[in-house]
């Protein structure tokens, strides 16, 4: 991570997460998700976003967070390996700039499924923010095992 990074903050189950802004394509409201039978548990389904097909990942399930998803979920669009994914979250916050000084290594006692995809934890006035590693989040093999 460079000295000053812009990140998009999202919340899932009252926990604050960060995604590098360079990886975020767009933010959209989810409606009419078509579930995909037999898919991994964390795949919420597919959705038509202005003629593009997007695979929606249920971030709550992917990160093994507690609680239920909000009715009108928001999603963060991410391009990975030439494919379009949407990360389903409870809410999308602001774009914030972080410098390296607030970053801490990932605590060892984090839930394994969370620890696998976290790249750092930031101390923010509002609380702790977990930076997510998009590659590891969407890596097919890793996610298959987690499921």
């Amino acid at each position, binding site marked *: 991570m460079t000295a000053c990074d812009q990140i998009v903050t999202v919340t899932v189950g009252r926990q604050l997460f960060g995604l590098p802004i360079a990886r975020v394509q767009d933010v959209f409201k989810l409606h009419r998700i078509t579930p995909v039978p037999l898919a991994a548990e964390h795949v919420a389904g*597919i959705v038509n976003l202005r003629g593009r097909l997007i695979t929606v990942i249920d971030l709550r399930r992917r990160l093994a967070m507690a609680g239920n998803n909000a009715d009108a979920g928001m999603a963060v669009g991410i391009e990975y390996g030439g494919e379009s994914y949407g990360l389903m979250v409870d809410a999308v916050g602001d774009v914030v700039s972080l410098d390296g000084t607030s970053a801490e290594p990932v605590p060892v006692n984090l839930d394994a499924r969370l620890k696998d995809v976290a790249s750092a934890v930031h101390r923010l006035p509002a609380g702790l923010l977990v930076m997510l590693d998009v590659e590891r989040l969407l890596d097919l093999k890793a996610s298959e095992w987690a499921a």
Partner: protein
Amino acid sequence: MDELLRDFLVEAHESLDTVDTELVRFEQEPNNAESLALIFRLVHTVKGTCGFLGLPRLAALAHAAESLMGKFRDGMPVTSDAVTLILATLDRIKDILAELERHQSEPQGSDSDLIAQLDGMAQQPAADTSATPMEAAALTATQTQESKAAGHSIRVNVDTLEHLMTVVSELVLTRNQLVDLSRHRQEPALQVPLQRLSQVTAELQDSVMRARMQPIGQAWQKLPRLVRDLSAELGKPIDFEMQGADTELDRQVLDLIKDPITHMVRNAADHGIERPAERRAAGKPEKARIRIAARHESGYLVVEIADDGRGLDRAKIAAKALSRGLVTQADLARMSDAQIQRFILVPGMSTASTVTSLSGRGVGMDVVQTNIGRIGGAITLHSVQGHGCTIAIRIPLTLAIISALIVEAAGERFALPQACVMELVRVRPGGEHRIEYIKAAPILRLRNRLLPLIHLRSLLRLGEDSARQSESGFVIVTRVGAEMFGIVVDSVFHAEDIVVKPLASMLRHIPAFSGATILGDGAAIMILNADGIATAFGSSPVADTDAVISGDETAAVALKPKTSLLVFRAGEGTRCAVPLSLVTRIEEVEASAITPSGDRYLVQYRGGLMPLIKADADMRIKDSGRQPLIVFSDGERTMGLLVDAIIDIVDAHLDGAIADARPGVLGSAIVNGETTDLIDIAHYMPLFSDTRSAA
């Protein structure tokens, strides 16, 4: 990169591939003046352009090769050595071209070795100058034909074509949306222009599709050379024949089938064809044949790869499937040759006993099957032991836009490609067509045959897993290869032209789906893969029982889904159970009809003698009245298990089963709140192995 250089590279690659093919043909037909003229002209063009672009190494090589070929034209006999040398020269030219593409300049190095050999061969005195001289007329004829074609075609970048296709796809989607909207709103003024739009869109779609069509021969271009090299390396003389090379298909599909086809041809040469001595012993001509043929068949392209080699070895495949735990001996006995042959399409089933440098590298027919299945194609095998094997692949002509039937199961919609739909049958209880069950397997009587059915709802595990499915709906009669089956859905809407979108890699492992699409109403839905659904037959129900019959304790413990069990009582001990799927029949016989014979019992049953065994050594057989028994059969053998009473049929999870060391008992599990012994039928069956001769 320099425009001129890029054009040269594209052209040179194409020319050299053609030269490869033509040379191999020329070697077999040395009098084919047309072929030689073509080779000569292509090499000459490459040489000319090299000189022009200042590429001395390439020019020198091409010149030397041209000189030698010039001698052929003058009547020098065509020898295999000479052709090999020219092919080697072409390979060197290709290497240099590859370097040229990377670094934009010719690599350092010397080709004096090849040039000296080429020159040496060209210097040899022509032994037979009376060979048919080149007919100049033929040369000029082909040239004029070529130049006429050139005036009517232009080179278009593949990306441009792809983009055009994407745009047309979007247009089709928008058109579908408009049509959908107008269906709900009766606006007469809209009807005419909408119809026109529909027509124009269809025409445009058709034209763009046609622009993307390419002859399949492009995917075969390297095959004659491949077979020639293999033939030399393996010491097997092979005649290679190609038919229907001008059959056209979408270039995207073409790219995807190139590797599978190459793999299958290689397999045929390496594994299919026997050594010459072996062929002689079998009374076959020493020179083997491999034939590849393509043709159009009702919206599909069919490619057949046939060899006259040893064919698939049923016994070997069966043994391998057995050792890999894919089937049981009992299953094998019931299976047809065709069913057993299909095991070669399952991962890890390579039966090649030795791994050669050519095939057997861990990738086999299963990869071919996966690749073909992914594009909605199917593989059929036809093999006669000792006489050869024919593998046919059936693939859609295009992947981009297909006609599909929109169906519904458990409230979810899915698209099923029309091409695999044979007919639709409406089913309802008491109706003309209704779903019948043999044990748990749904069956439909369709004219003179029985059609195995699968409920889409249960296949995709949609909704609650109700034991009995709704009996009304539609059966979609589907054909994959030679197999026919029915898919049961709740309702069928309409047919729609859909734009196939690839699935994210995260979803690609699900065999039931081949892609996704967006409907006219904006919904995203999944596209069903009939080929993938076909694999669900046989494999999933058998897999469960396998674990039980195999007698492997760990497997019994690892049983996942619910299993139907027949629960019975025998002797004083705990209740016993066997998987219902293994039971052939539940019977009652007159106790007086049972006669002891040594340490076992016999009963007259359906015109023969059936051996019986007590489920518990301590149980007593009734003196009078009716004695219950459970009949099992594996292929031809039938046996009866004597029990005190049949209790129930239950669906139970066997997750918590504990393995057991007692003979004949797999383990124990809690079934309906009671400890129950799971009986190992595999233990009892062999006890009767000698009864067939006795009976």
